[in-house]
């Protein structure tokens, strides 16, 4: 009996000390703060999902709590309003702009990192200078330029400025990366008589897939979220981006709250999918430490 009690209390002691060690080791204050911040961060998202399945009666009587049944037909109504066209447009704008940006930038970055030529420093300063030109300075004259080229309300009005705007950052990052690749790779290829373009295509680009991926993702998020420029140059409904389309959509459904918020959720789906498939690459690229000045 006595022995049993002893073991029980001893084991209780052990459990107790294990628990305190657990609390001491896991730094519960940090966990608590982070969890509270996460809840506050996600609250608007939760609100969005909650509203998207309510009908108007539920919206006015039980706005901030879960209410049954779910009205999933809100999503159908939102989808039928043409939001699919906006999403298709945004995808097309982002993909073409990213391809243009990275094709031009990888050629330039290769030249700056691996080739000898006259005026290298001066030309690099011209790239560097781009960082000093704010979007607000070029907004009005680029609009006028598009007007003169008759490119307003065409896809080029977004593709070309986005490709130009992406150059500086992509060239910086890629140049640093290309310059860090081992010289022997390039030397042996040149001895075999490969041209610079072949070296770029066959050796450099396959080795830079992860960094290219990160750059592409950053630009896609940027283009997807851009509002001012597409609002300025695109007025045709069939060419609108998701961001601009959502404003039109908000006008259409101004008192139809369920479909309105369902539409907002639908508009986020492409980025959710992109993030689901690429978050590893994205986080890895951003935490590699390359992004600083």
């Amino acid at each position, binding site marked *: 009996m006595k022995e049993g009690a002893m073991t029980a209390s001893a084991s209780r002691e052990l459990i107790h000390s294990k628990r305190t060690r657990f609390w001491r080791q896991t730094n519960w204050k940090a966990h608590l703060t982070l969890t509270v911040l996460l809840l506050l961060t996600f609250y608007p998202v939760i609100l969005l999902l909650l509203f998207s399945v309510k009908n108007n009666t539920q919206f006015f009587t039980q706005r901030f709590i879960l209410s049954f049944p779910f009205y999933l037909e809100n999503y159908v109504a939102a989808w039928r309003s043409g939001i699919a066209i906006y999403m298709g447009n945004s995808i097309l704008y982002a993909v073409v702009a990213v391809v243009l940006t990275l094709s031009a930038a990888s050629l330039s970055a290769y030249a700056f990192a691996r080739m000898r*030529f006259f005026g290298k420093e001066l030309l690099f300063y011209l790239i560097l200078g781009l960082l000093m030109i704010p979007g607000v300075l070029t907004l009005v004259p680029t609009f006028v330029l598009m007007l003169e080229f008759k490119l307003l309300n065409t896809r080029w009005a977004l593709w070309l400025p986005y490709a130009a705007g992406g150059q500086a950052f992509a060239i910086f990052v890629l140049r640093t990366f290309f310059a860090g690749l081992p010289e022997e790779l390039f030397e042996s290829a040149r001895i075999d008589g490969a041209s610079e373009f072949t070296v770029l295509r066959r050796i450099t680009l396959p080795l830079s897939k992860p960094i290219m991926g990160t750059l592409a993702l950053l630009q896609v998020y940027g283009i997807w979220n851009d509002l001012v420029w597409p609002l300025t140059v695109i007025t045709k409904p069939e060419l609108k981006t998701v961001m601009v389309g959502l404003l039109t959509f908000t006008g259409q459904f101004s008192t139809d709250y369920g479909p309105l918020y369902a539409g907002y959720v639908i508009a986020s789906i492409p980025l959710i999918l992109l993030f689901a498939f690429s978050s590893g690459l994205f986080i890895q690229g951003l935490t590699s430490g390359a992004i600083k000045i």
Partner: protein
Amino acid sequence: MEIAKERLPVRSLAQKKRGSRRLLWSTLQAYFFLLPTFALIGLFSYYPAMLALYHSLTDWNGVLLAKYVGLDNFREMMRDRVLLASLGNMLTVVFWSLVITLTIPLLVAELIYSLRSHRAQYWYRLLFVAPIVVPFVVTLLVWRFIYDPDLGLLNALLGWLGIGFRSRWLGDPNLALYCLLFIGFPFAAGTNVLIYLAGLQGIGESVIDAAKLDGATGLRRVISIDLPLIMGQVRLLGILALIGGIQGFGAQLVLTRGGPGYATMVPGMWMYETAFSYSRMGYASAIGTSMFIVILGLTLVIMRSVESSTEYNAR
């Protein structure tokens, strides 16, 4: 120098010629590689920038011939009540966006960094960056609902807490600007946390251990070890917040158009209005040019004054 002199005669004239011909060839090739980039930035970055500088000296509605007016636009800016009001708002926005960018994401990064479990670090990292999937405009529109005087969350919340205060929020001239600043609370999500975290993870165990031996822990370590070592990241995010604060007007464009009255007007929004609502491209260009000069000056000052972290990293 001496070595070069000795070697000079060894290289024959033919070799020299071949060398310079090779440089010429490689220059031609390199220019070919650079052509797409320079075509793009020449046409869509440098040319518009030059146009903006030129148009800032003209009176122009965007269609008819521009009339040269010298510095008249800049003189008018000095008397422009709306623009002067918008400058005050801009300073408020810049101040708070700097404060926000330099505190909360850094705090989150430090907290994640302080966790011992790699799995916990991984999940927090993922969850804090995940909200980037919500499009910017959706965030704005959800917050417009939160601020809605009749249906919104904020007034409802005050009701549940039994507080008698109600406000029109975005419709209240005294609160509207702060309401815009508050969008995105608690400001912990997004890529900034990851960028800070990248800096912290680059510091290295040995530095942290040495600091521990010297008794630098907690806040003391953050201030005297972490901050100087992640200056590269701090400087980048600081400059981005500054530039964003000076030229950003997305929230205004969607939610307030600068109102009520001119309570949330900022120079970027005013430039947009003068250009596209009043067709005064010349005057708008003058506002843009002035903002460019301010941004350029501030960026150069910061680049000079805040030391980079690279010197420390060498060890």
